Every structure is written in C-alpha cells, then in structure tokens.
C-alpha cells in the first residue's frame, strides 16, 4: 500500500511533460499539463521519487552513489536518476500534487510505474520531461557535492525557519557576489521580471515595473533548494539562465542555459472570472496557484504561519508556508494558468518597498535603504530565527506523506463542493450540539417506542401475526401445491394436458399467496417508517430553526471578537504600530493611515527590559506576599489578622471593649 501511494505521487510528477496548456480539466496523462517541464519538475520528481527510495531503501543508501530511479521514455530510452534525502524536503509538493488528483486519476496514473527491488521504473514519460530531467540528472551525477547533499541528512534537526533563513542568506550572498553594484529597483524596472527571494521549497519574487509594483512570494511546505536566479537582474544575454543551488552558504551546483522561467507549461484552470481579484494573496487564500511567464508560484490555499523572521533596524517579515488544502476541494488541479494575472495584476503599492502580508495587516519595510544588493544582502543576513511552536523540525521519523497527506486525500470529497466550514462560533457549536442531541432524541423516541412495543409483546405479536399468516399462507401454498401434486399423480393417468392445466392453477394460487405474504411484511416495515416519520425531525428542519434563532444572537460573536482583540493586544509578540485609522475625504488632513506610534524600535530592547522589569516585579510581589502571608493562611487579610490578635490580647488583659 505504501509503495502504491508513493508510486502515485511519482507518476504525477513524471507525467508532467506532455503539454496542453489551455486544457481546463485533466485526467490521466493530461495531468502533465499541470506543471512545467524543467527544474521544478525535476526537483519535484527527484524529491518525491526519493521519498519512495527513502521509504524502501533509505537504510541501504550509498553516500556516494545514492539510489537510482529508472526513467524510460516512449522511445525506450532510459536513464537513472539519483534519489536521497530530498524525500524529507519535498512533502509539501507531494501533498499539493496528490491533492490535485481524484481517486480515479490516481489509480489511472499509478498503472504506469513499477518497482523492481530498489529501482522504481517509470514508463511513457513525455519527451520534454525526459530530456529536461535527464539533463538535470547529468548535472547532479557530475557534481559530487550536490550528489552528496542529495543523499545526506543535512537538514535533519533543523526547523523550517532555520532552513528558510539560511536559504535567504545564501541566496542574497550569491546575488551580491555576482554583481555587488547592481541596483535592484532599477534593474527590475528594466527587466520587469523577478528579484528573487529564494525560499523554502518554491520561491518568492518581487515584480516591479514603472507604474506598478508588487510582491509575490510563495513557499512550499518543505524546502528543496535555494535557487538563485541572477540573469534577469543583469540583462547579460550570455548569462540569461543561471541557477545556483546553494545551501548553508555553499554552492552545491549550478546550471547554465537552463531557464526555470521559460517553461510554457501551465496548468489547466477551473478559475472563474468572478473569482479573480487584484490581490495575489487572495488567490492563494482562495486556493489558486499563480503561474506567469512560466513562473510557477507554488503555494495555494490555506497557509500556516511560521514564526517571524526578525530583521533588526527594519520590520519583521512573516513567512508563511502554504499547503494545498482548500484548493484540492475547490479545484480539480492545483496549478492554474494565470499568466495574464501575474503580468497585469500587481498589488497596488506605494512608492517603494516590498509588501508582505502579515495576517490582515500589511507591513512595508523601508526598502529605500535597500536599493542595492549590498544592502539587500545585509538586510537578509541580519535576520535571526525565533523558533516557535510552529517551527517544524525535520526528522527521519517524519511520515507525513503516509499519515497526513495520502490518507486524507484518498478519502476526500472530489465532488467540487465547497468545504464545510469548521470555524464555528460558540453559538453555532451550541446549536450544533442541540441539533445533534435532538436528532438522537428523536431516534431514542423511536427506539423507546420500539422497546415499549417489545416490552408489551406487540412486536412479537405483529411478527407472530406475520409469521402465522405467512405460515398459514405458506401452508396453504404448500397445500395447494400438494393438491397439485396429488392431482398431478391422479391425472397422470388421465392425460398430460389436464395435468399441466391443474398444476398451473396451483402455481398461480401459490404466487398470489406469496404476494400477500410480501404485503404483510411491507406493512410491518411501513409501521416502522411511520414511527420514524412521526417522531424524527425531517432533515434540515432544526438547522432552519437554529438559523432563525441565531440571527437574534449575532452580537455574541462581536463580544467574543472584542475579548479576543483584548487578548491578542495583551499577549501579542509583534511590535505594535498605532495608526490613526483611515480618514475619509472630508478630513482636512488627508486620506491615509497615519502612524501615531511605532514600537518596532523597541523590539531589540524588549528581552532585556522584560528581564529587568520582571525581576523588580517579582521582588515586590514576593515581599508583599510575605507580608500578607499570616492573613492568607488565616483566611483573611493581614490587617484583620492583626486586629484580631490585638483584641485577643486586650481580652486576656481585661481591657476588652
């Protein structure tokens, strides 16, 4: 079963080379439409394929050679590719890919792959995919360092945040090394492509042109490589396509003449025009991936927020990892062809800077100080990681594919219906509980009546009547049949024609009586249905009633929201920024959000001041507790305790009041 599931995942990747960009729905091999045909595919393929390898042969892996996956194209050509530790880094892709397919598609695709001992064999791979994977494979095979990385446990024990920050640092260090004098903003105007933000498992990029500025970024759940694209920043035609694979500040490999962005493979889309929005994040939240210029921006649907990456002297960037959950329920494919959207749709944006989504707020770092690569690299390298409960640690025992990805996918609803909203308010939950218990009450009534009937012997009576009737009728049937047999025996002597006629009569009578028997049984079951219809509320009845009442208590949600607002205000960890709020046109001071107070500067001092203030508070608090201790033990205040003692003394001395 495990192999079968992982094989399905691999097949999804392998078949991504047969292209038909405008197709809107894909089945089987047409899934190839979904994703591009070059590096992304290879990485996805290799990583997910190595998931199989890790699952099956990880313990046997050779540090130098790794394990190999056999890939064969339609012409019978064949090569092998390395697999290894990328398994642990690629589960986000695996999830989104698997999520995109229905059970039928998974089954259909799984038929194209076999596993022979330690080698997975994939057949009928599209030609483009085959060639691109093969070229990448050669690059890896010829690069011992990269190959070693593929088969290493380098990332074991690191959290997602640590990995992400390291990837960022290495990427910008690489940009700086490539051309320290480049002006990011100017170059981006000339080449309105992407200033790359390498991230874990995908990447983010800024897209800036003369009139519009925007920022898109996306992440997979797990990192693959830090890939650093420099070509579009320089316009150097000789280095148009140059990918650098880096990790921990070390260059693992590079690819020339290979362009990630040149992919013309886009996914079929089921997006309606009414669902479009000007905000790319809204796409992601609504479960749509963005594809443009061959750029696959991964990261559709629900997002899980990781901890902040804190950049001193600037504000904080909140990195979010996106998992494909909503998309798989709304859309049949994870990747959508939104080329025009990414080109034409930029987030409305102020003069400078990068816009990063932070929950519902938008934080704009002072990018004006980062208008060259040196500053950009310094900016990123100043980052530090604050691990939180969300900082997932990658370890060897991770089995997310098997337990958290595959199984729910196989069970998911592929009807395309919107998901059921799980975020219920307390009132919803109350009514849900009410509804549930009322329904069970109805059932209980029915079963209770049934029990009463049982206790009174009525069911037995009814069944007995049915049985008696059945027995009688069966007896009559048998009797008629016996009579028929007797007549048959008697009339055999008289002639065949008469015999058949009489036996026919007996048979017809038997059928009629069997019909009557069935009728009685139907009446008994009908009686049960009657009880149900009398005592069990109809479907949706209580929902409607609950909805009717709920409108009267809608204010409760507002109260809860206010309480939560206070809670988050008191316990929040991000530096607050107090704004004046949006002013309308009638205001003479302008229309904008004015910052009244920005405590970002205090972030670096907060740990120290917290310690100092905490120490002082604890000293005072403990002293106060010490003073009050007698009263606490006695059950009343210290002053009352002292008064009582004085009274007691006075009474003993005869000086009482």
């Amino acid at each position, binding site marked *: 079963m495990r192999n079968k599931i992982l094989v399905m995942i691999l097949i999804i990747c392998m078949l991504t080379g047969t292209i038909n960009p405008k197709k809107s729905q894909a089945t089987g091999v047409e899934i190839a439409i979904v994703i591009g045909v070059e590096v992304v595919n290879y990485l996805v393929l290799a990583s997910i394929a190595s998931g199989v390898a890790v699952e099956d042969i990880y313990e046997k892996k050779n540090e130098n050679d790794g394990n190999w996956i056999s890939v064969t194209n339609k012409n019978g050509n064949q090569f092998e590719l390395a697999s290894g530790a990328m398994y642990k880094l690629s589960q986000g892709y695996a999830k989104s890919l698997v999520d995109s397919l229905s059970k039928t598609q998974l089954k259909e695709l799984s038929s194209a792959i076999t596993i022979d001992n330690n080698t997975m064999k994939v057949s009928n791979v599209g030609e483009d995919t085959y060639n691109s994977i093969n070229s990448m494979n050669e690059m890896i095979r010829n690069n011992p360092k990269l190959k070693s990385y593929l088969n290493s446990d380098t990332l074991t024990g690191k959290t997602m945040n640590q990995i992400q920050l390291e990837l960022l640092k290495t990427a910008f260090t690489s940009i700086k090394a490539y051309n320290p004098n480049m002006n990011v903003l100017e170059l981006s105007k000339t080449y309105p492509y992407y200033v790359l933000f390498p991230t874990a498992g995908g990447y983010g990029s800024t897209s800036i042109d003369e009139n519009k500025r925007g920022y898109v970024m996306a992440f997979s759940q797990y990192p693959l490589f830090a890939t650093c694209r420099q070509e579009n920043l320089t316009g150097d035609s000789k280095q148009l396509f140059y990918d650098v694979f880096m990790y921990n500040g070390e260059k693992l490999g590079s690819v020339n003449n290979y362009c990630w962005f040149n992919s013309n493979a886009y996914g079929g889309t089921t997006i309606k025009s009414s669902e479009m929005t000007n905000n790319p994040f809204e796409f992601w939240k609504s479960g749509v991936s963005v594809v443009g210029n061959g750029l696959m921006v991964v990261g559709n649907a629900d997002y899980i927020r990781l901890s902040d990456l804190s950049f001193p002297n600037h504000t904080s960037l909140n990195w979010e990892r996106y998992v494909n959950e909503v998309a798989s329920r709304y859309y049949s494919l994870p990747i959508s062809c939104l080329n025009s959207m990414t080109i034409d749709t930029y987030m409305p944006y102020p003069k400078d800077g990068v816009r990063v989504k932070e929950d519902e707020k938008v934080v704009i770092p002072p990018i004006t100080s980062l208008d060259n690569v040196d500053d950009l690299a310094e900016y990123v390298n100043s980052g530090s990681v604050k691990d939180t409960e969300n900082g997932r640690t990658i370890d060897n025992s991770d089995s997310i594919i098997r337990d958290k990805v595959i199984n729910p996918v196989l069970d998911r609803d592929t009807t395309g219906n919107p998901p059921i909203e799980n975020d219920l308010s307390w009132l919803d939950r109350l009514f849900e509980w009410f509804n549930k218990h009322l329904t069970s009450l109805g059932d209980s009534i029915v079963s209770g009546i049934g029990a009463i009937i049982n206790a009174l012997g009525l069911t037995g009576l009814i069944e007995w009547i049915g049985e008696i009737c059945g027995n009688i009728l069966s007896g009559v049937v048998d009797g008629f049949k016996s009579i028929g047999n007797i007549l048959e025996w008697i009339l055999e002597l008289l002639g065949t024609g008469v015999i058949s006629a009489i036996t026919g009569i007996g048979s017809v009578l038997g059928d009629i009586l069997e019909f009557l028997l069935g009728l009685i049984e139907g009446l008994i079951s009908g009686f049960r249905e009657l009880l149900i219809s009398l005592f*069990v*509320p109809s479907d949706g009845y209580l929902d409607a009633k609950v909805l009717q009442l709920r409108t009267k208590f809608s204010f409760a949600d507002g109260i809860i929201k206010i309480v939560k*607002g206070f809670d988050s*205000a*008191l316990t929040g960890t991000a530096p607050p920024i107090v704004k004046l*709020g949006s002013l309308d046109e009638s205001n003479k001071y302008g229309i904008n959000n004015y910052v009244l107070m920005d405590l970002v500067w205090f972030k670096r001092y*907060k740990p120290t001041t917290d310690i100092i203030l905490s120490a002082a508070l604890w000293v005072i608090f403990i002293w106060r507790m010490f003073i009050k201790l007698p009263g606490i033990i006695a*059950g009343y205040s210290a002053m009352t305790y002292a008064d009582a003692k004085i009274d007691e003394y006075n009474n003993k001395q005869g000086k009482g009041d």
Partner: protein
Amino acid sequence: MIINGLFDFIFGLANVLFEFLPSVEIGFGTGFNTFLSIVSSVAYLLPMNTILIMFGIIISLMIFRIIVSVIKTIWQLLPIL
C-alpha cells in the same frame, strides 16, 4: 411530524419573546482598533508574561482565602462546637 410540531411550538414561543429583543450589533470600529493598538503598545512595553503569572497567583490566593473563610464561618456557626 410530532417532534416537528413540538419544536414548532417551542421555537415559535421563543421567537415571540425574541421579537422584543432589539437588533444588537457589536463590532469593531476604527476607533476601537486604535484603542486596542494603544493597549497593545502599553502591554508590549511591560513583561506581560510575568504580570499575568502574578495576576494568576493573586486570584488563586483570593480563592484560597474565600475557601478558608467559608470553612471557618461554618465552623463557628455550628452550635455543638
């Protein structure tokens, strides 16, 4: 059917009572958000974790006092002791 009728009656009765309730809408306004931001700013300057722990201790001690006082009061009220 019978249950439906029963709940029609109950919900109908409740609806009649609820009709007298005015429509109440409680929500955030821009001003409230600003107020929360100010509260958040003040809280950000303080070691809120420590303060919340102390607050919890104070509440716990108050509950302890109340329990002891109740026991003592009951003890004194008993005529046989």
